[in-house]
């Protein structure tokens, strides 16, 4: 009896010791963002905020490690970018390289970012972000927003080729939708439900498609803008109403899951959806029956901004230069970005693997993305409206809620306008 107990005790204690040691060893070797991880090489972290390319990015990091011995650990978070990175800074463990939205370069990048003025890629692009004379933002791609259409689906329904140029006004658009309905496609549109699509992409156009977006936003801050009587707001919301009216997932409203919408577009079960070139990778995961293209959002009030896509440089990297990232890691971060812009692997990754439109002139690898190709044509023809990059951090999560209500018909347009005005006038203006 006693012997067996002793044995048990010895066994238990040794298990504890072994496990504690294992935990110890493991903890110290992979704890901390910049500790020596794999092998003897440098190890840095990268935050990716484009979830559709997370897997491709992880694969790219493996290629990079094979070539250079530098380990790049790729992270993604479903939280809003600014909030997630703030958490990382609060816990004193920021990522080495951070993919953020342009607005974050002016805040986080300005505060923590390394100056990349002397990097090789800078002269090769028109889209880098420079703040106070320092190059802080590395552009990942060019992205534009508009109405996606599946021309194969339209052709199958109507029996004739679809010419996006024939749709100029909302009335044209509505006439076509009615034709599609008459031809048997009961619900020719779909609406994505997430806040980033509704607020950061669609609502955002209300600020962008005008002569002086900055002045309009300042008026919103001061509570002087009159949204409900604003022609642009009403024009865009009229179009939104039409997208809503013919919505395939009307019953689900803002709760419709993204993949339902993507599958419908990809397989040609519907014909139109508001979106952009980043949706390409998602479309490809279904039984793709395209081509899918992109056209400007049709509006009944024609002005200098209708007939153009909204967008430009998108998703910027900055390298962390705060006290938590060593000089060596900063250099490794910059080297990775150089490689991404200038190496063949990097160029192929951007244009071919991910099908993004490269912001770098020297990248001649053909873009594999049908939507991206269309975007590039608009960009080359100068038919784009630039992004407005200075939204407050909580803009899309807070106003996303209001847009969802509107999509679900849980509020009127007047209430939506009032909620948007109330949000802006109660928010501290973003300095830039």
């Amino acid at each position, binding site marked *: 009896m*006693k012997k067996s*107990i002793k044995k*048990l*005790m010895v066994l*238990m204690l040794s*298990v*504890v010791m072994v*496990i*504690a040691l*294992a*935990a*110890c060893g*493991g*903890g*110290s070797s*992979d*704890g*901390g*963002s910049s500790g020596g*991880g794999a092998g003897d090489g440098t190890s840095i972290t990268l935050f990716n905020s484009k*979830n*559709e390319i*997370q*897997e491709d990015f992880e694969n790219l990091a493996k290629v990079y490690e094979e070539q250079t011995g530098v380990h790049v*650990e790729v*992270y*993604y*978070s*479903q939280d809003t970018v600014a909030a997630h990175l703030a958490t*990382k800074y*609060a*816990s*004193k*463990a920021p990522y080495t390289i951070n993919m953020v939205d342009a607005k974050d370069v002016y805040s986080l990048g300005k505060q923590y970012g390394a100056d990349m003025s002397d990097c090789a890629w800078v002269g090769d692009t028109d889209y880098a972000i420079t703040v106070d004379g320092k190059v802080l933002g590395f552009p990942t791609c060019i992205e534009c927003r508009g109405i996606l259409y599946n021309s194969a689906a339209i052709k199958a329904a109507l029996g004739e080729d679809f010419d996006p140029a024939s749709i100029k006004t909302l009335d044209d658009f509505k006439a076509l939708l009615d034709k599609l309905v008459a031809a048997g496609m009961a619900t020719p549109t779909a609406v994505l439900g997430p806040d980033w699509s509704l607020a950061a992409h669609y609502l955002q156009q209300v600020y962008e498609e005008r002569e002086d977006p900055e002045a309009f936003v300042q008026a919103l801050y001061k509570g002087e803008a009159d949204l409900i009587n604003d022609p642009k707001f009403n024009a865009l919301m009229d179009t939104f109403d039409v997208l809503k009216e013919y919505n395939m997932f009307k019953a689900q409203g803002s709760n419709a*899951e*993204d*993949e*339902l919408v*993507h*599958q419908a577009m990809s*397989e040609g079960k519907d014909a139109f959806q508001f979106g952009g070139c980043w949706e390409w990778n*998602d479309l490809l*995961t*279904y*039984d793709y029956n395209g081509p899918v293209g992109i056209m400007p959002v049709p509006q009944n009030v024609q002005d200098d901004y209708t007939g153009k896509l909204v967008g430009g440089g998108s998703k910027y990297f900055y390298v962390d230069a705060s006290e938590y990232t060593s000089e060596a890691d900063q250099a490794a971060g910059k080297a990775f970005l150089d490689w991404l812009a200038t190496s063949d692997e990097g160029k192929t990754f951007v244009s071919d693997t991910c099908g993004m439109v490269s912001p770098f002139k020297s990248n001649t690898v053909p873009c594999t993305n049908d939507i991206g190709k269309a975007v590039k044509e608009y960009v080359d023809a100068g038919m784009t409206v630039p992004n407005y990059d200075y939204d407050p951090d909580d803009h899309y999560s807070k106003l996303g809620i209001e847009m969802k209500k509107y999509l679900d018909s849980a509020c009127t347009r007047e209430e939506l306008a009032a909620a948007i005005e109330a949000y802006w006038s109660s928010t501290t203006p973003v300095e830039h």
Partner: protein
Amino acid sequence: MTQNEKAAAAKKRNHVIMMIVLVLLFLFFIMPFLLVLINVFKDKADIVTSPLALIGAHGFTLKNFPEAMAKMDFFNVFKNSLIITITSTILTILVSAMTSFVIVRNGKWKMCSAVFALMVASMVIPFQVLMVPLVSVYGGIFGILNSRITLIFMHVGFSVSMATFMFHGAIHTNIPLELEEAALIDGCTRWQTFWKIVFPLLKPTIATVAIIDAMAFWNDYLLPSLVLTNKAIYTIPIATQQFYGTYSTDIGLVMAALVLAMLPILILYLFLQKYIVAGVTSGAVKG
């Protein structure tokens, strides 16, 4: 029909009704698992179009598993969960059994009763009250978050009060003082007495504490999510949550990830079902 026969017939009828109710309830309880299970072997496109079909248009597939395993780094997170759960459970048992021993056997010492009272009172504190100070003390002041050891240390700290309370009851009622006195007279020290006499007699309570705590540690999300931010040391619940956030558009992978997250504990349950149910019952009734 005699009175007895009538009663027997009524009893039989009752049993049939009860059986039907039980079977329906049982179906309700396993229905979500079944739905996940029939979809995990389907292509993403089929899950979206026909979540109820047994086999989708693209046929039966196993491809969701290897992909989900690779993407959530399954073996690594499984290993992390295992290390953290086993170490925390063993440490909790050792530390709490010892603490309760000194408290029970020296109940008259003021410090013992004070500590015990504090422990009992602390059991009503919800974790939400402690999360901000924990992050601010261990992250802000000491900067030791993001390590398995910190998490283990916190797991033990949180569960020590409940476990001590349970051991306290067991020692108090089940371990005769005479045994220990005899051992002391034989020349054993207190330390030896505890390990040789008391601890082995606590086996049933040890089993109960082990089952309850191990399940709590294995499934805990909020504390690990605040402590662990480095991918390499994620546990299963955190990896699942992160996975869902990243790949929620690939529902086939999500199904596989959910099955992977549930499978280990379900397999364990298949074998240890009797002990787990008994352990939880006695723990719940005592606690």
